[in-house]
């Protein structure tokens, strides 16, 4: 009954969640902003990698295809936590050693930068696969028509391939975006204070576990709902021109 009572102890919860100290609401919001910042950067960076990766996998030479296969397999296979530990610690260790060898002092690598970099590389591997699948789902004729009219490949990508694949790619990309917002939690390990870490700290310091975890859940839900609405619009736009399947027998 304890957690339930705690859940119902709304007055106490409101006090704990108020925006200025001693309430922890401000901390949670700050964490959320940090999370979104990194998620946004990483998602965008990942999309760029993914686009080139998908193209490389579909149209690249053998060497490029093999290298991309290794990239997507390794990055997608290794848990992000391990990647972050390795890329961040070993990476900064190396940078520092090099800097010291040249007579410079310790280099600080900012959490935001490292986070975007590391998560972006991870996201890129997934985007590659999502976009590759979407490109393959485009009816061949659509691309051929563009080729036949002499569209340069970059323009073909921009004007035909990307809009035509959108309807196939959007659900997968929406998943990736949500994963990005939540993967930022892993950056807690490098001391980056995003939403999950702020939540855990608030919860452990006040022992009000239910209050804070539900509050964090609600914040995540809000992000999801907002981005869901955005992705819905994108998908609807991407599907324009395709007859709806709904209501067909």
């Amino acid at each position: 009954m304890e957690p339930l009572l705690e859940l119902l102890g709304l007055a106490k919860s409101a006090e704990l969640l108020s925006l200025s100290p001693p309430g922890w609401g401000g901390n949670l919001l700050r964490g959320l902003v940090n999370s979104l910042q990194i998620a946004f950067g990483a998602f965008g960076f990942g999309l760029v990698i993914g686009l080139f990766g998908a193209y490389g996998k579909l149209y690249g030479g053998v060497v490029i295809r093999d290298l991309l296969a290794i990239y997507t397999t390794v990055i997608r296979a290794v848990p992000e936590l391990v990647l972050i530990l390795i890329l961040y610690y070993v990476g900064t260790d190396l940078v520092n050693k090099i800097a010291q060898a040249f007579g410079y002092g310790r280099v600080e690598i900012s959490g935001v930068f490292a986070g975007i970099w590391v998560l972006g590389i991870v996201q890129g591997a997934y985007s590659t696969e999502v976009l590759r699948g979407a490109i393959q789902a485009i009816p061949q004729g659509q691309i051929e028509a563009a080729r036949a009219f002499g569209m340069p490949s970059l323009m073909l990508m921009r004007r035909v391939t990307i809009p035509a694949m959108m309807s196939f790619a959007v659900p997968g990309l929406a998943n990736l975006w949500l994963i990005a917002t939540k993967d930022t939690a892993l950056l807690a390990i490098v001391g980056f204070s995003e939403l999950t870490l702020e939540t855990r700290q608030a919860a452990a310091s006040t022992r009000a576990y239910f209050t804070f975890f539900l509050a964090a859940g609600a914040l995540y839900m809000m992000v999801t709902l907002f981005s869901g609405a955005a992705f819905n619009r994108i998908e609807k736009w991407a599907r324009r021109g395709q007859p709806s399947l709904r209501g067909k027998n």
Partner: protein
Amino acid sequence: MAELGAEEIDTQNADEEAIRVTDLRKSFGTLEVLKGVSLTAHKGDVVAIIGGSGSGKSTFLRCVNFLETPSAGQIIVGGEEIKMRPDGSPADRRQIERIRTQLGMVFQAFNLWTHRTLLENVIEVPVHVLKVPRAQAIKRAEELLDRVGLGDKADVFPSFLSGGQQQRAAIARALAVDPRVMLFDEPTSALDPELVGEVLTVIRDLAAEGRTMLLVTHEMKFAREVANHVVYLFEGRIEEQGPPAEVFGNPKSARLKQFLKTVG
């Protein structure tokens, strides 16, 4: 009369070669679809390619603009040879892109871009590849759509159109790029006789402007009326060719005779 008109054009431009294909071969895996096809079209020529289903007509057209990589052969467009790697793929992407803008294509399956309206389909290449000012491209596109009878469908997406409407839109899209050579893959298959007549007029006009056309068709009557040169493909080889009067009036090959018999 049709033939007369066609021949007139022929003699006029006989000197200027628009397209020359030499010994073109193409295999899909073990299936050899084109077994050495050579063909020359001069400026203003209308070449009709006829032949049975699966004889390689579409494949030939698709090789001409490198949508399929030929297994062997040589393709010269407007005097410029397309550079090929030993495996048949184009060696110079820029070149192939430039040349393709001179080759308008109407596909057998139309291949309109489903994510764009008809008008957008038609202005896409002029605006983004040829850098025509948008307003001008729209004006021209509206004219073309009117010409093929789709003026009122400009803002409709292709999936909501009838087969014939899609085919006409595809023709308008190809015309919009002002190509020197038009590649038509069965441009009238989904059209009723009335519209076939109109397409015929369009093609004649284009020829009179000095444009060259390669035209795959199953309608012998159409071929006879519009072309000044007819090529009969059989299992990947040119079995017979010549002016329409001869090919249709006095076929030599037994296979062509058989092929034409049903047309009466």
